[in-house]
């Protein structure tokens, strides 16, 4: 009952998307990370406004000035991070800001009864007086959905609701969605887990690089077709051909790494000069592994063997001293100090190298910085430029440079090309290649499987915190990874 089209010129976040969702269906929205699913849904729910394009809802052209506006018109989005106030009761959260009763006398009986009513519609028997903090994540989702229903929502958007749920909780969610559909509510379900799509969705729309690739009926579409749609075809030419590099001896072995609720028995080896890819869906435990090896988080069981010796990394300082570095996913918050100049960023992980008796030697710092700018061909007018003024790709290079300067032998790169444009991407690939050419080893985490395949010697595929398989870079294909990652 709805025709949407909108475009974002310039930025390629969304490019003239057409999406049609019919009343009473569960419409799946698929796509790799960064395909633009979340952006599209933000537009639909009034979080951001489109630059161009129109939204029709129930055959009427609508414009949403804010999420509240969209809610009142009947479109509610349920984000991954739930928008509930944890200290308040379920009932109060459902009617937050619009409690029943007069201004001076909230009718708690009515509030609780109505809350119960909506909770029942969702198919749950949660006591409305329960404090939200004491609920499970699945129950919190149900409360969110009940809240959406209380707005008389006709369309509920669920943004990767399954990412935070376990198996039995997932079943609960599906039952809830079925109940919703019975009541004539339309659902847009975002996920990249195919088995969920198979189970719950009527039709799907696949997105890639900010464009809608196509809309299909689920029952008439094979998994292979879907995977092809997500991955796309024209990938080969984007990536450089890798020179083959002689692999050295084993430099790091991860043995039975276990972190409660996140990682189970993860083991793999990394050789000198190797690029080891780590693939998996959101929540599979990729970043967790990286942070454990780097000492940023603690793990419960397992051991790390580095250069033949068992090591203990209690904090990042220890890891850096040993020669292990992490280029974090969130480079602006964790990788760089954006309001500081480049040279200060370069040297922050190895202040010892530019100092004597605790005194910083400016000359040495500047010299080293100039060298790093040249080595990684970072585009900047000066080493005194503030990091905030650099483009995303160049910022990423600065973070890499920081750990190069700290003499890291192993670099863990967590999503190094996310949010980076094509040209800079290629330069980052060159940097990675140069790293291994110089005898460093790289642990590459990426959601871009084509990128992983093109760069990696081997790829470890994770699923729910466990290693589901290992592929050699030459034999791997996105389809194979996806199949393993989905299990």
């Amino acid at each position, binding site marked *: 009952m709805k025709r949407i089209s909108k475009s974002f010129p310039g930025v390629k976040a969304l490019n003239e998307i057409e999406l049609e969702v019919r009343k009473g269906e569960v419409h799946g929205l698929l796509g790799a990370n960064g395909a633009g699913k979340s952006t599209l849904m933000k537009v639909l729910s009034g979080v951001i406004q489109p630059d161009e394009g129109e939204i029709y809802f129930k055959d009427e052209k609508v414009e949403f000035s804010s999420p509240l506006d969209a809610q009142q018109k009947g479109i509610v989005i349920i984000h991954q991070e739930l928008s509930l106030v944890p200290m308040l009761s379920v009932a109060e959260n459902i009617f937050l800001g619009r409690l029943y009763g007069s201004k001076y006398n909230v009718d708690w009986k009515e509030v609780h009864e109505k809350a119960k009513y909506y909770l029942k519609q969702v198919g749950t028997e949660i006591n409305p007086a329960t404090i939200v903090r004491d609920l499970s994540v699945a129950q919190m989702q149900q409360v969110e959905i009940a809240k959406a229903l209380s707005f008389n929502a006709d369309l509920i958007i669920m943004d990767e609701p399954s990412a935070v749920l376990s198996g039995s909780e997932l079943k609960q969610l599906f039952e809830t969605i079925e109940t919703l559909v019975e009541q004539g509510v339309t659902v847009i379900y975002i996920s990249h887990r195919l088995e969920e799509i198979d189970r719950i969705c009527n039709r799907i729309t696949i997105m890639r690089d900010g464009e809608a690739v196509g809309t299909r009926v689920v029952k008439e579409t094979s998994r292979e077709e879907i995977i092809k749609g997500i991955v796309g075809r024209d990938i080969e030419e984007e990536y450089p051909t890798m020179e083959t590099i002689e692999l050295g001896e084993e430099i790091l072995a991860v043995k039975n790494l276990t972190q409660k609720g996140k990682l189970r028995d993860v083991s793999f080896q990394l050789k000198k000069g190797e690029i080891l890819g780590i693939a998996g869906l959101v929540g599979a435990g990729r970043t967790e592994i990286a942070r454990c090896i780097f000492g940023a988080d603690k793990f419960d069981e397992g051991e790390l063997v580095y250069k033949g010796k068992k090591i203990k990394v209690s904090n990042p*300082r220890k890891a*850096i001293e040993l020669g292990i570095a992490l280029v974090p996913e969130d480079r602006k918050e964790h990788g760089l100090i954006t309001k500081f100049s480049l040279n200060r960023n370069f040297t*922050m992980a190895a202040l010892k190298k530019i100092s004597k008796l605790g005194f910083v030697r400016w000359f040495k710092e500047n010299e080293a910085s100039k060298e790093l700018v040249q080595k990684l061909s970072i585009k900047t*007018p000066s080493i005194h430029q503030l990091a905030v003024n650099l483009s995303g790709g160049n910022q990423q290079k600065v973070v890499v440079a920081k750990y190069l300067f700290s003499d890291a032998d192993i670099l863990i790169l967590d999503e190094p090309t996310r949010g980076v444009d094509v040209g800079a991407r290629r330069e980052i690939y060159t940097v990675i290649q140069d790293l291994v050419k110089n005898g460093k080893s790289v642990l590459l985490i990426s959601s871009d499987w084509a990128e992983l395949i093109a760069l990696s010697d081997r790829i470890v595929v994770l699923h729910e915190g466990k290693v589901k398989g290992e592929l050699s870079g030459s034999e791997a294909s996105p389809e194979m990874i996806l199949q393993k990652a989905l299990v």
Partner: protein
Amino acid sequence: METVTEKRNETQLKRMKSKVDLADLGPVLALLILIIIGSILSPVFLTKGNLLNILTQISVLGLGAIGMTYVVIGRFFDLSVAGMLSLSAVLIVGFQPFLGTIGAIFAVILVALVVGLINGSILRFIKGDFGASIMITFGTGTILASLALLYTGGFTLNPERDTVFTWFGNGSFLGIPAPIVTLIFFSIILHVVLKYTTFGRAIYLTGANHEAARLSGIPIHRIRTITFMIVAVLVSIGGLIRSSQTLNASPVVGVGFELDVIAAVAIGGTSLAGGAGNISRTLVGVLIIGVLNNVFVLMGLSNYDQMMAKGLIIVAALLLDRRKELKLVRKG
């Protein structure tokens, strides 16, 4: 595409530079204006005697403020300086009979180190943030203030007036009063450490983005704890000077001191958002307060009016700081 970005970056950088310069000059200009006002108000103002008098009076505040600058650059806050000033003032005098003046000074410095260590350790243990540092040090400051009162039973102590003790408040070095010499001495040390050492650099990095600093291997908790220890030690030396200047040790000498210290740091332009600021700026802030106090007196304002004026001035300084911050955010 690339050239467009570069051009934009360049203009942005230029714009930023000019703005930063203006912001830096603000406090200096304010100081100059105050000095002009002072010299118009009274012919005495610009005499050597009065100027030295101003400097002598701000030296205790100055010691606290340069120490606080370290803490604030590290994105923490220390409200316990007031209690520390009172406690150190009475302890030095109290220890004199047992340890001698020099021994007492060292003992009090030791106490200060422990206080700083406790402040830092509590905040580390509870994983406290900026807000926690304010509240916790408010509490520890209350404890220190009550300890000062407990130690003397609420009375003022009389020190033994030996030469070492009296020198700090009343002596001089090369013709310059000792409090000023002490302030200059520590200012230079703190300036050099902050600007030229890796420790100083680490404070900036910690304050600017503690997570990025941690992931770069900087021991952020240790750094912050040391800044607490530094401010406590400097304040305890301030306590010594204050006791020596007045030749008595009052257990309530520190009341309101924290506000003066915050005022000096904020007026100097060190951002409470952390990661920026320096000793010379804080000294300008300290000078402004000193001259302001002097001008107040010349204008015949009471102590009470000065309290009010200070409250207003800090809010104004905070607002300026806030505006700078917002501009940065908008840019980011």
